[in-house]
């Protein structure tokens, strides 16, 4: 009996319904255009997937704790710009420049977190302002021009954007980053003590605080984590295309939040699923890729993406209602 019960609750879980929809979408695209499942196209999707996916992992934890971060797209743009400027100045080694870029992300995340928790302004307003500051800084220091990125082979380039072939498939090292970080996030959210705290804080902050959970510290660290992951993703992307553009990552914040909620994480906090986020990231990636292949005109993409996201959210809401009733 309990086995049956567990199975039915799995089927009703949001990540499962997202997974089913993903399968349906993949099947539709594959039937509509045979090239969709070609090695070239799959390799292509897998190159883009980690860059937004890595940010989505941090965003999932943050949303589960009841906050969110709109500055990730801007941080994605600024971090590699800083790294490249430092390298071009010729005074620092690339490793030091990368470290400096990540420390800047730590600072941005810490400022977000401190203002949200200690002054009590909503994360929407704080991170929206931070988006403007960070994007503005990237534009100002580059005067709006993209920087040529580091393209000499070396340890760090391989580490972040190296590629390798498996048969006819070409994969980037960023895929390993995404897989490793996903496993880590699954462990932290669902199996570690910290995950229990994150869910409790998002579900009922006062209750968590009353049990001695350091809610503010947890949130600040999650803001830092999200910012660092956004910066890391920006660096990976810049190395891959050998250019750091001050406008890179524009609009990514909403795309990432869409991935997370489509996967079944609640925007209001308390309920988060990393597996769902991975499914959500795959889904948005394949939609963007698939609709190009099947010949939807470029300017009409967002209509499709928006409609599919809405459909997913409606489905989750209906399932949620159903679960509450039974």
């Amino acid at each position, binding site marked *: 009996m309990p086995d049956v019960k567990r199975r039915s609750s799995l089927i009703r879980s949001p990540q499962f319904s997202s997974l089913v929809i993903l399968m349906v979408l993949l099947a539709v695209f594959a039937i509509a255009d045979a090239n969709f499942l070609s090695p070239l196209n799959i390799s292509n999707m897998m190159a883009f997937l980690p860059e937004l996916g890595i940010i989505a992992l941090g965003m999932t934890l943050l949303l589960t704790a009841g906050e969110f971060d709109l500055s990730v797209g801007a941080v994605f743009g600024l971090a590699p710009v800083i790294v490249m400027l430092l390298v071009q100045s010729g005074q620092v080694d690339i490793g030091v420049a990368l470290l400096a870029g990540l420390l800047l992300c730590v600072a941005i995340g810490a400022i977000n977190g401190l203002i949200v928790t200690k002054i009590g302004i909503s994360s929407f307003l704080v991170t929206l302002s931070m988006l403007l500051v960070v994007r503005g800084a990237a534009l100002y220091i580059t005067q709006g021009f993209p920087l040529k990125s580091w393209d000499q082979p070396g340890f760090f380039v391989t580490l972040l954007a190296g590629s390798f072939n498996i048969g006819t498939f070409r994969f980037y090292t960023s895929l390993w980053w995404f897989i490793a970080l996903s496993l880590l996030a699954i462990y*932290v959210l669902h199996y*570690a003590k910290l995950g*229990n705290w994150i869910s409790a804080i*998002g579900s*009922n902050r006062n209750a968590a605080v009353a049990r001695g959970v350091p809610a503010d510290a947890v949130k600040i660290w999650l803001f830092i984590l999200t910012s660092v992951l956004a910066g890391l993703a920006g660096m990976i992307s810049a190395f891959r295309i050998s250019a750091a553009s001050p406008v890179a990552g524009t609009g990514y914040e909403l795309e990432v939040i869409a991935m997370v909620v489509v996967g079944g994480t609640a925007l209001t906090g308390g309920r988060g699923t990393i597996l769902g986020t991975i499914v959500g990231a795959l889904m948005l990636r394949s939609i963007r890729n698939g609709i190009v292949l099947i010949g939807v005109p470029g300017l009409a993409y967002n209509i499709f993406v928006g409609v599919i996201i809405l459909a997913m959210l409606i489905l989750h809401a209906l399932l949620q209602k159903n679960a509450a009733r039974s």
Partner: protein
Amino acid sequence: MEVLRLQNLQKSFGSVRALKSASFTLNEGEVVALLGDNGAGKSTLIKAISGVFPVDRGDIYVRGQKVSIRSTRDAMDLGIETIHQDTSLAPDLSIARNLFLGREPVNLKWLGVFAPLDLAKLRDAASALLKRVGISKKLDADALVSTLSGGERQSIAISRAMQFAAKVIILDEPTNNLGVEETHGVLRFVKEVRAAGHSVLLITHNIHHVFQVADRIIVMRRGEIVAEQTVADTDLLTVESIITGADMSALLKETRAK
């Protein structure tokens, strides 16, 4: 023996003086009822004791030792467990995870906050606890708290305080929203806790309950303690009139004379 002593606690929220000056003593194995009308300052007083916010002035002594309670963790470590009026559970977590929130059993303790939860132990301990409180037949330790009724949630919160066998258990209106059976469960629990040698500070608006379980009564009005009596020396009507403030002067005199 004295367990908890408060001396001149004061707390203001802006211009609202929620706690003007509160002093009292709680002894071992004693149930003290804290009474008073809405807004009298009862919740403010117990929030100060349980570390929700710091007091502006005044001292707290635990077993004769002056302590500083700056966080809820401090209070818990001193053996003070509180069940707050505004629900103290996280609805999106399972019953088991709520019962051990903040004190999760883990493996590989050296990993700190990254330590893996001991899920088997969590489940077993939760089931054992539910059985002990007598609600196991209805509830599964893996069920989400959001699927429970208000009364069931209250029972869970109470079992949790019991679990950690605190020196002092503070209950802020624990019988609110409870049915007849659950209310009896709570009152039985209060007696059990006292029998086990713990002290209870019980806030309630139901004077009948007070006479069933309390040893002593403390009445607050507008941020001050206005009367203190042993249950044996008073009766329902007297207490009611103190709370509402009718014939205050005579009663205050009576209290002072003691």
